């Protein structure tokens, strides 16, 4: 199809559907590479000087930048195009997936019980932070089901993430998991976790690298959304990886105390809430064995970041249905760890190179262009 690996459960696209998706991917690449950099130019040339004239000082933080930048016509056009590209992406993928949703559900059913396990809990309440808005503008969010045994939301997510990342998360969209694994292999060479938990796994993009890196380990993955988990399990089976998927909220799981040697999450925290992120960290503390660690992969925190970079990185908070994004990236993560029971000396906050970017030496490019650690992931590490 394109650079994405065509495993058995990946939705297929007709000629026109693929062309539509190609256009969105090209549009996103073009916006990031050719339009977005102009935002920095207008910021330096007219927005920042105007702010300085008005306030007698340079912008101090992202709120100062936001106050002026959102009325700049160049920024408005980029921002409107960026939002539109996001809507077009979901539209182009979801129409294609809906056409084949019966076939995908049948395929997923055929892959069930072949490897690993899938445990669903229909009584699990949908967290309010997922019900409030459809996160990152995916219509129906992670959770909406269109039929019995539905995998639609998972299939849409798998394909759309590839387009969203403009292919830069690799053929299996597994770059975040692979980057954490690379960090672990380098820094903790003798580490042999027996049990691993991936929290908020969605379709398991980042789960599978741990199966490969630690073949002796029992790998568990949880998510709140059933259609994600059905798809995730079918995908793992299709790719020959053994994972135990279960429908659980990371804030409060049914695993016994001290069950895991390693807990990981990948861009989970920013899709929760202030209350939930505290619960999740306390749950990590409860679930970790002595000497074990939790690693949460995210985009970087705003503290110490250039105000313009922080403003651009914060675009999703206001424009992409990511209401918790900004709040999380302003939080004091050291304090959060201590409040959750972790020893302050075990906390690490570090940027690690993207495994994919390292392997392919691609251009560093986030959605908004090259800034604030594009080509890297932020790791929040705590130990017990």
């Amino acid at each position: 199809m394109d650079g994405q690996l065509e495993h058995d459960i990946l939705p297929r696209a007709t000629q026109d559907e693929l062309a539509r998706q190609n256009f969105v991917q090209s549009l996103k690449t073009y916006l990031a590479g050719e339009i977005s950099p102009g935002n920095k130019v207008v910021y330096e040339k007219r927005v920042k000087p105007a702010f300085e004239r008005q306030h007698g000082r340079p912008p101090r933080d992202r709120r100062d930048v936001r106050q002026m930048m959102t009325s700049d016509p160049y920024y408005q056009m980029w921002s409107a195009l960026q939002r539109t590209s996001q809507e077009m992406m979901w539209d182009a993928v979801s129409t294609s997936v809906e056409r084949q949703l019966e076939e995908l559900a049948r395929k997923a059913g055929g892959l069930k019980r072949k490897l690993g396990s899938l445990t669903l809990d229909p009584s699990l309440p949908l967290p309010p932070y997922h019900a409030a808005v459809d996160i990152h503008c995916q219509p129906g969010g992670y959770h909406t089901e269109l039929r019995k045994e539905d995998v639609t939301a998972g299939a849409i997510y798998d394909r759309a993430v590839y387009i969203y990342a403009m292919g830069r998360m690799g053929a299996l969209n597994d770059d975040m998991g692979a980057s954490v694994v690379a960090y672990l292999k380098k820094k903790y060479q003798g580490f042999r976790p027996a049990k691993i938990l991936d929290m908020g796994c969605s379709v398991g993009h980042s789960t599978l690298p741990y199966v490969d890196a630690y073949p002796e380990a029992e790998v568990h993955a949880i998510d709140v959304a059933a259609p994600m988990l059905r798809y995730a399990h079918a995908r793992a089976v299709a790719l020959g990886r053994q994972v135990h998927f279960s429908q659980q909220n990371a804030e409060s799981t049914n695993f016994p105390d001290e069950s895991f040697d390693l807990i990981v999450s990948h861009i989970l925290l920013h899709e929760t809430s202030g209350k939930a992120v505290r619960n999740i960290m306390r749950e990590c503390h409860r679930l970790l064995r002595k000497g074990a660690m939790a690693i949460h992969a995210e985009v970087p925190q705003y503290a110490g970041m250039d105000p313009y970079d922080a403003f651009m990185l914060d675009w999703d908070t206001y424009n992409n249905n990511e209401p918790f994004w900004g709040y999380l990236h302003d939080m004091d993560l050291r304090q959060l760890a201590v409040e959750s029971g972790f020893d302050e000396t075990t906390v690490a906050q570090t940027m690690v190179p993207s495994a994919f970017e390292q392997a392919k030496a691609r251009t560093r490019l986030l959605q908004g262009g090259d800034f604030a650690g594009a080509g890297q992931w932020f790791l929040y590490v705590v130990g017990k």
Partner: protein
Amino acid sequence: MSRKAKGKRPVYFNDPENDKLLAITMAVAGELSVLRERLDTIERLASAKGLFSLNEIEEYRPDEQVSAEREKWRADYLERILRVVHHELESAEKGETPESYENALKLVSS
């Protein structure tokens, strides 16, 4: 399923109608790209099957009649696209005003 994500869409421009126009324009641009890709497929298949080559397309020179037909098609096409501009002028020439339409409403309502 609804293809709209839950959550109020932001407004970017001073006139929110421009937000809609941009989204519509980009959708049309996307469909043009889809059509272009399909045409490219047809050309490449035709080339692969020996029907004609890509080079023949590049070297094709329309004769006078074909040129005239194409010119006519482009003029019709532009007229369709710029319809609203023509209509605005025609309306002004005929002295149409919002009041004149109100008058028409009154006329049929009595």
